[in-house]
């Protein structure tokens, strides 16, 4: 066996991960030695670290085509760079939104930021994974960080309960995923996605099909798709809103990367083994997510079921199984995360010390109390519902087009009809904000910086909808 030599030039495409590990250690140390001023230093330092990381990635780690490193276990490609930049941005915005919320509840600690950075590292590793082994390491890095973040508010019994559920169910899903990986590895003798794609062709054996079933279960759990969705409402509802914001956004990018690398990369030549399973999972998610969301009285829980429904749309892109389908899934994921960031950002701004704005009733007459917040929420809800000219419409349209092109007429009809159900509960929020009496509920937080970012976020949902081509072309370019 020839031992590969590691030089600086040869590992340069892996700069984002290497930089982030170093940055995690720096933030951890600075937080310890900053003492009492750590509460002010660490959040700012974390944002600076993320900005510097994005800059370094853009400057040094760009690649033209796919490059493999570390004996094929690491893939650097334009898709990887794009997803890493997106997830860095989303994590930074999520941390920006959540600072005052954490401060008000006395859980603003340096470890929270370290855990957010390790979660981001997990996302990076998953995005660039070239083998089942590195993919699993990334999944565990991300999942362990999220478990700890959900349980971060030690005085909240609900948070501890949801963290426990998340942990136990997540461990079972990891077990299923590992079992599938070990079956596939045992029958093909390789962990690398590129070699798996060559080895898995033609009619797969019974053992391979068993392995693929377990892999689909693992992916469906990470996405939170029915019937492996049980953790989603409880975690979204039970976790502190800032953590819900985090769990609901950047990890979705990682789930997309997991599904894309696995299904399109490793199992791309045996599409028929997994596409039907995925279609069933997607349809169940669409129906259950959108129908049960109607019955919710808690906004966080409603958005959790809406997340399940939206995951159904993302999976439909994979069911199409074409280049167009993957593009649509990528576009949908990015757009969905942007809109979710905004909606949870509004929840965080509407909350105050001692007042958790998570019930739907808490939004009655928000327009009278806080017109700008209500306007932003209205834009985001219209967009998530998929009403033109907002961007959510284009995301759904892409999925429909990809399904139409592959003759999945039945799936288009199901998806379109549940979207109509979805419009009802998104518009109910708008109705509560604009047409109901305000009562004596408190105003939202007045943080100017956060409000400005949230405004840009909501504006993005409108502008990307008016000019959808630039992001669409970018998605097509990084996937080609």
């Amino acid at each position, binding site marked *: *066996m020839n*031992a*590969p030599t*590691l030089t600086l030039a040869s590992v340069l495409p*892996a700069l984002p991960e290497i930089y982030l*590990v170093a940055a*995690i250690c720096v933030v*951890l140390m600075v937080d310890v030695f900053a003492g009492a001023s750590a509460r002010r230093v660490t959040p700012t330092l974390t944002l600076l670290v993320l900005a510097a990381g994005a800059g370094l990635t853009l400057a040094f780690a760009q690649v033209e085509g796919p490059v493999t*490193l*570390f*004996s094929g*276990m*690491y893939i650097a490609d334009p898709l990887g760079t794009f997803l890493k930049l997106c997830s860095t941005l989303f994590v930074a915005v999520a941390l920006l939104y959540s600072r005052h919320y954490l401060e008000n509840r006395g859980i603003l*600690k340096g*470890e*929270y930021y*370290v*855990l957010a950075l*390790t979660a981001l*590292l997990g996302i990076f*590793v998953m995005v660039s994974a070239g083998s089942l*082994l*590195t993919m699993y*390491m*990334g999944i*565990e*890095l991300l999942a*362990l*960080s999220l*478990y*700890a973040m959900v*349980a*971060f508010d*030690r005085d909240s019994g609900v948070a501890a309960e949801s963290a426990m559920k998340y942990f136990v169910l997540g461990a079972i899903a990891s077990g299923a995923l590992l079992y599938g990986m070990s079956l596939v590895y*045992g*029958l093909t003798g390789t962990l690398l996605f590129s070699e798996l794609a060559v080895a898995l062709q033609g009619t797969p*054996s*019974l*053992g391979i099909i*068993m392995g693929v079933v377990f892999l689909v279960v693992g992916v469906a759990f990470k996405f939170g798709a029915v019937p492996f969705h049980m953790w989603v409402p409880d975690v979204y509802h039970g976790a502190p809103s800032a953590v819900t914001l985090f769990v609901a956004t950047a990890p979705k990018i990682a789930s997309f990367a997991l599904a894309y690398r696995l299904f399109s990369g490793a199992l791309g030549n045996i599409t028929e083994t997994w596409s039907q399973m995925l279609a069933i999972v997607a349809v169940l998610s669409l129906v259950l997510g959108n129908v049960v969301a109607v019955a919710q009285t808690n906004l966080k829980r409603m958005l959790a079921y809406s997340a399940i429904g939206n995951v159904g749309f993302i999976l439909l892109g994979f069911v199409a199984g074409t280049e167009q389908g993957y593009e649509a899934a990528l576009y949908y994921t990015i757009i969905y995360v942007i809109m979710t960031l905004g909606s949870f950002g509004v929840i965080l701004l509407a909350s105050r010390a001692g007042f958790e704005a998570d019930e739907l009733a808490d939004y009655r007459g928000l327009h009278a109390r806080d017109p700008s917040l209500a306007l932003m929420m209205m834009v985001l809800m219209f967009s998530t519902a998929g009403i033109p000219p907002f961007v959510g419409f284009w995301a759904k349209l892409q999925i429909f087009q990809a399904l139409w092109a592959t003759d999945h007429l039945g799936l288009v009809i199901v998806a379109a009809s549940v979207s109509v159900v979805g419009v009802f509960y998104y518009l109910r929020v708008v109705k509560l904000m604009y047409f109901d009496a305000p009562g004596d509920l408190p105003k939202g937080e007045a943080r100017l910086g956060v409000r400005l970012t949230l405004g840009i976020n909501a504006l993005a949902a409108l502008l990307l909808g008016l000019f959808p081509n630039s992001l669409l072309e970018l998605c097509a370019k990084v996937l080609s």
Partner: protein
Amino acid sequence: MLVQVLFYAFSAVLIAAALGVVVTRNPVHSAMCLVLAFFTSAAIWLLIEAEFLAIVLVLVYVGAVMVLFLFVVMMLDINVEEVKRGFTRYAWLGWLIAFLVIAQIVGVVWFRGLGIDATQGAVPLPADYSNTRELGAVLYTQYVYPFELAAVLLLLAIVAAISLTMRRRPGLKAQDVARQVAVRREDRVRLVKMDAVTRDAPAPRQDGEGKAP
């Protein structure tokens, strides 16, 4: 021949020990049975020339993990019989599931074969072959990326565990050694000057004390 005899002997001990973990009533005995199970598995690994894994299994699992287990079991002093009462009600379900799983495994492995030729054994390795060197060579070259990621995973586990368990509870009476050492005599003992009380003078009566009910 000798190797086969040894294999079956160790396997028998291993299965008996594994059963002992589940069956014994005393948790300390269970932990000890688990130690025996680890030890015999290490011996079986030695038989297939995986000496590094065998030594690591003894060092890490027997030496560290099981000692920790024993500490926890002995400190918690759980009455297992209390916990396990009524447990046998579900035994039929357990048997049913175990039977199904075994039937499925036999069906897949025995009758379908999974396309693997399991009859050929491993080729014996030369005498100067070092497991440890080979593992080290691939671990730090080919697998260096996942290896480093595993290190980050451990760091993350430490950070998460500490941030979730360490906190200042209000009203916790912790010992502050520095303050104990720095204490001065004046902080603890107060000398009070009092007038001497003579025996024949009656103690001064306080208001309301002498009234009859």
